[in-house]
């Protein structure tokens, strides 16, 4: 039945409806704890887009979510569910940090940055490689193995940050601060001519990289032979096998591309904001990527706005917590779960009603 829907309904209206339903339910929860949902929504919108500074933060979070959203989407196209974005981003951060720690006092940022991109992508890809090869060669379920690898990554990083990479025990588990050469420039200055003052917001060059990667992913998936094969595998593994495509190669490459994108996410917080490697810098962004990819229907043109929406939720949510102490930032986790539920698992819930409505007003033929 889904195929009968016009594209604008499938790609535009359906995700919108699922977000609205998620907001309405969250609004009921807000009402339940005795606050006004309308007031909360206004505060949140103001917190996300109310000033240049806030917009800067929103886009900073959005940068992270574009990377992780693209990572999940690429795997989706090959029929794989990569829940391991969280771990891949965490290990990607290790790659980024190792480059920064060794080059930061020797080279300027624009020499360090390309190496850091490669290292982040490589480490993320390698962390995705093991689950991928196990899925392709031995049939181990990739969902379970990537979940396990998230926990293994977390243990590994705690070990490294509290051990070999730690600067001093007083500062806790984190690396030393990077020198100039390990920090990428903020983008606030670019917006000043437009009359937007982003102040000290951490929006940085990796935002541009995220947009470029969205374009690259679009080209790979819809304009290359590899992308075509990947989508074939995702839609019908039997057809892919019959056409002589190598399932092992496709699964491994798709997962490594996915892991590389997740790994590049680390550039944003590690080089763009904190200028050091610290514990739990991913902060669940790998999982937000699932919601972003589902809402964006695995298309880069959908993922970028979805990531900005979630960036707004994260920034607006922390501002909201100041004004309404009753509503903590955990609200976002709830909204995120509801979006995943309605946009992902219950996607077909509203379809019959929409079809009836659209045929009723004559938009769709009977």
């Amino acid at each position: 039945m889904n195929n009968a829907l016009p594209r604008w309904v499938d790609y535009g209206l359906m995700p919108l409806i699922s977000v609205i339903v998620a907001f309405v339910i969250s609004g009921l929860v807000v009402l339940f704890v005795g606050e006004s949902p309308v007031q909360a929504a206004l505060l949140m919108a103001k917190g996300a887009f109310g000033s240049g500074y806030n917009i800067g933060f929103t886009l900073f979070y959005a940068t992270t979510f574009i990377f992780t959203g693209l990572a999940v989407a690429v795997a989706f196209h090959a029929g794989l569910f990569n829940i391991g974005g969280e771990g891949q981003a965490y290990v990607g951060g290790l790659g980024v940090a190792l480059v920064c720690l060794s080059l930061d006092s020797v080279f300027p940022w624009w020499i360090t940055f390309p190496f850091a991109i490669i290292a982040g992508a490589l480490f993320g890809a390698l962390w995705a490689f093991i689950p991928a090869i196990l899925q392709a060669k031995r049939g181990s379920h990739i969902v379970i193995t990537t979940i396990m690898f998230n926990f293994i990554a977390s243990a590994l990083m705690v070990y490294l940050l509290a051990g070999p990479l730690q600067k001093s025990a007083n500062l806790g588990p984190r690396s030393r601060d990077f020198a100039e050469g390990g920090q990428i420039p903020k983008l606030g200055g670019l917006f000043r001519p437009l009359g937007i003052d982003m102040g000290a917001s951490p929006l940085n060059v990796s935002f541009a990289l995220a947009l470029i990667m969205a374009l690259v992913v679009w080209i790979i998936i819809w304009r290359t032979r590899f992308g075509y094969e990947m989508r074939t595998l995702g839609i019908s593994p039997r057809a892919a096998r019959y056409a002589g495509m190598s399932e092992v190669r496709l699964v491994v490459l798709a997962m490594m591309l996915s892991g590389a994108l997740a790994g590049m996410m680390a550039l944003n917080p590690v080089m763009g904001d904190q200028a050091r490697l610290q514990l739990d810098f991913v902060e669940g962004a790998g999982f937000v990527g699932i919601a972003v990819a589902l809402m964006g229907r695995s298309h880069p043109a959908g993922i970028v706005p979805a990531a900005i929406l979630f960036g707004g939720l994260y920034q607006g949510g922390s501002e909201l917590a100041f004004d309404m102490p009753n509503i903590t930032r955990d609200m976002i986790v709830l909204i995120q779960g509801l979006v995943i539920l309605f946009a992902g698992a219950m996607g077909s819930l509203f379809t019959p009603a929409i079809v009836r409505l659209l045929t009723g007003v004559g938009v769709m033929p009977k």
Partner: protein
Amino acid sequence: METILQLLDLTVRSAVPLLLACLAGLYSERSGIVDIGLEGKMLGGAFAAAAAAAVTGSVWLGLLAGIFVSVLLALVHGFASITNKGNQIVSGVAINFIAAGAAALLGNAWFNQGGRTPQLQSEQRFNPIELPLAETLSSVPVLGPTYQQLISGHNLIAYFAFAMVPITWWVLFRTRFGLRLRAVGENPAAVDTAGISVSWARYRAVICCGILCGIAGAYLSIGVSAGFVKDMTAGRGFIALAALIFAKWRPVSAMWACLLFGFLGAIEIRYQGVALPVLGVVPVQLMQALPYILTVVLLAGFIGKAIPPRAGGVPYTKER
């Protein structure tokens, strides 16, 4: 002797929530509903149990509230994956976030303690039970202390969890309900042909899963701890999932797998930074990661092969 007993006692304590969640997953997955939302259901159950126990002052109402919330979440998962034929993995992920977000949000709004629930009094919790004659027999060598320290002195939920192992085996392999449950997980079309509702069988399995997850959550928040703390399940739902795979979806093996993972947890707590014979000082993080590493190795087929129920993860559509 003393140290070994303490270690084993700690093993049992760590294994109980894993065992309950693992058996919960067993019911669901044997019926063909893949459930990675065990973590969320446990967390929701833990929060509801502690909140209800704190407000009503009754440990039993707490337990009931925990079960109720967990079953509610299980039904959402059931609705998405059985009625709506949605993606079960996606739905499970959603359940985990909904539970984590709602528990922290409501906890903070209701009790104003940063997501914690108020400290529970002794009568609002499941307390350790002294089994009969434990004191009298403690002078008997070996068996006495074992009985007193290892077998006796756990709370009601712990005994319930271990009793559920043979009960689950009996239900699944010796009753009509169990036969149908396993059948819809292997070959739903055959069950449908026999005139039995696939959906209803799966819904019942999902409800069983919810009940056990709720009890597992209650064990954490009103059993071994005196209240709910944000994210208190700390990945136990996923370790239970790993144990389920490790046990190849069988109840008695599930108990051994949970005891093994519980033992790893106990060593991790007991021997932090202590040099072990032969191995030297093992990083605590390695011990933490070991259950996950073992599961990946198992999944890779290097130690036996884990074959899941055949219809797992596939929504059933009646042929027309």
